[in-house]
């Protein structure tokens, strides 16, 4: 029994010592491209952008790419995760130099993405914010434009942290507006007003032109003269059409000072 406990303690100590070392030793690294999605120049460019944002705000903005998160963490950290959210939580809480962080993890095997935020990072990146950024970069990820996706992530992270520092982070009650949002917010009411206005105008115009030929002679039908001699209703055929339901493209989980949002690209 003592032998088992000793081995367990040694394994725990080794893991604890080994894990932070991977990232802690690379304090100035903000992108870990183990899946080799970027060229050298792209890597440098993204690295510089993430570094600038992170150092300016004191919240680390990290990108981590792997070929398969399950294999990677099993082989390198002796950890087994069933979801990319769990893997991201592990990294955010245990493996990063700064506990105030936001992480974008990409796993190529099942084309998963996950944005996780911890401590101050969690305050700045709410579930709404993580989903917003995930949706914003999803198309680039889908198209294989990883460079663009990562630059967009860095830029949006900067904007979200800026807003947090102003006192109110972007959230469901304080949404970040895009041109499309503005179009929806103002376009729908304006469109509804125009449609109702036009209906009223055409209705008035029609009302002022009441002189029309009568299409029918219902006024001259002799009461009770109608006799139905033959009537049937026969079923002919049925046609069934189906449309796929719109699926939730991402899911979010929040617990204490940590939260993550994941989806597929």
């Amino acid at each position, binding site marked *: 029994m003592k032998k088992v406990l000793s081995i367990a303690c040694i394994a725990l100590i080794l893991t604890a010592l080994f894990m932070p070392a991977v990232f802690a030793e690379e304090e100035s690294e903000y992108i870990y491209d183990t899946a080799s999605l970027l060229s050298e120049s792209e890597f440098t460019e993204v690295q510089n952008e993430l570094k600038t944002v992170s150092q300016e705000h004191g919240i680390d903005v990290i990108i981590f790419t792997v070929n398969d998160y399950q294999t990677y963490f099993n082989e390198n950290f002796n950890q087994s995760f069933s979801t990319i959210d769990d893997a991201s939580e592990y990294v955010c809480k245990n493996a990063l130099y700064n506990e105030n962080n936001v992480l974008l993890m990409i796993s190529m095997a099942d084309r998963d993405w996950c944005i996780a935020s911890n401590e101050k990072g969690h305050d700045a990146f709410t579930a709404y914010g993580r989903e917003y950024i995930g949706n914003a970069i999803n198309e680039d990820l889908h198209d294989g434009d990883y460079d663009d996706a990562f630059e967009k992530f860095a830029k949006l992270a900067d904007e979200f942290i800026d807003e947090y520092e102003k006192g109110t982070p972007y959230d469901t009650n304080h949404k970040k507006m895009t041109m499309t949002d503005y179009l929806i917010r103002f376009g729908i009411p304006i469109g509804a007003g125009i449609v109702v206005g036009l209906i009223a105008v055409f209705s008035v115009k029609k009302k002022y032109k009441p002189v029309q030929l*009568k299409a029918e002679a219902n006024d001259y039908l002799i009461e009770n*003269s109608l006799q139905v001699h033959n009537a049937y209703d*026969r079923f002919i055929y*049925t046609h069934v059409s189906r*449309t796929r339901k719109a699926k939730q493209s991402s899911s979010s989980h929040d617990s204490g000072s940590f939260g993550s949002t994941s989806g597929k690209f």
Partner: protein
Amino acid sequence: MAEIFEYKCPCCGGAINFDADAQKMKCPYCDSEFDPQAFKAQDERLKDQAPDEFNWGGSAGQEWDENETANMNVFVCKSCAGEIVADENTAATECPYCGNPVVLSGRLSGMLKPDYVIPFRHDKESAKETLKKYVNSKKFAPGAFKAENKLEEIKGLYVPFWLFDSDTDAAVNYTATTIHTWSDSEYNYTETSYFDVFREGSMSFENIPVDGSTQMPDDLMESIEPFNFNEAVDFTTAYLAGYLADKYDVSMEDSIERANNRVKRSAEDVLRGTIDFPYATVTPKSSSIQVQNGKAKYALYPVWILNTDYRGEKYLFAMNGQTGKFVGNLPVSGAKLGALFGGLAVGVGVIVYLIGTLLGLL
């Protein structure tokens, strides 16, 4: 040969009119009232009376060209001897000199004699008042139209109508659908079921009116329908006194198609009304309409015609002389329509924005 009838009061000899309020012939001078049917006998007697004949020699003036007189006739007023010029379709009018109402009986006898007439129930003042109310009730008519609109002419006119009766057999095929929707975790489903619906039946129509005068716009005449034929009386020229009257210039044969179209549409509608099942849609696919025992009557219906002028443009109104139903197209003020559009667009826009924001939809 057209002949002028003037109805004289047996009491004082003044020219008498048909009075819409009293529904009797009334003398405007001594207020005596007479049953119009009593004049029927007088009409019959006059029919047999030999016309006056005067032969004068000499010649003055020039001969009329045939083209000049083709559509125009001259009559002599029996009260003042003034000359009345009327076109070929005028059957009743008034003397422009003494104002006496005259009936040009020969104009009606040359063609078919009307079977029925519905007497006027609304008089000229009623027509004027109704026009005023009609225009003033239209909030979107230009303000200037209400102020500057001038009543140019008002005339009580007996319009010739062909009245068609028919027994109609109809067979109509409809395509009907029902729609059922449901969903599972993956899909939304829409099931549309199609039905062949058939209805065959018979029905009868009576007194479907078709305007028999080309001078009256058909749409205007049909817009003041319906007329209540129960109030129609046997025709006698006495009812025409004090009003204008046209004789038909569209034959019964040429009017049948218009009646058929209306019967066909009504038959489809009526049979559709017998479909009890709440289908989502019912669309007529084909129909066969057979008209049996078709009969036609010729009647004169009372109509007030009002012409107004607004900034050089003519507006024509009509009032059903029996029921008082009033119609006529009116101009619409662009400024008022603009204000309505702007007000609604802004108001609805603000409401949608507020509701959308409150519900978190925008």
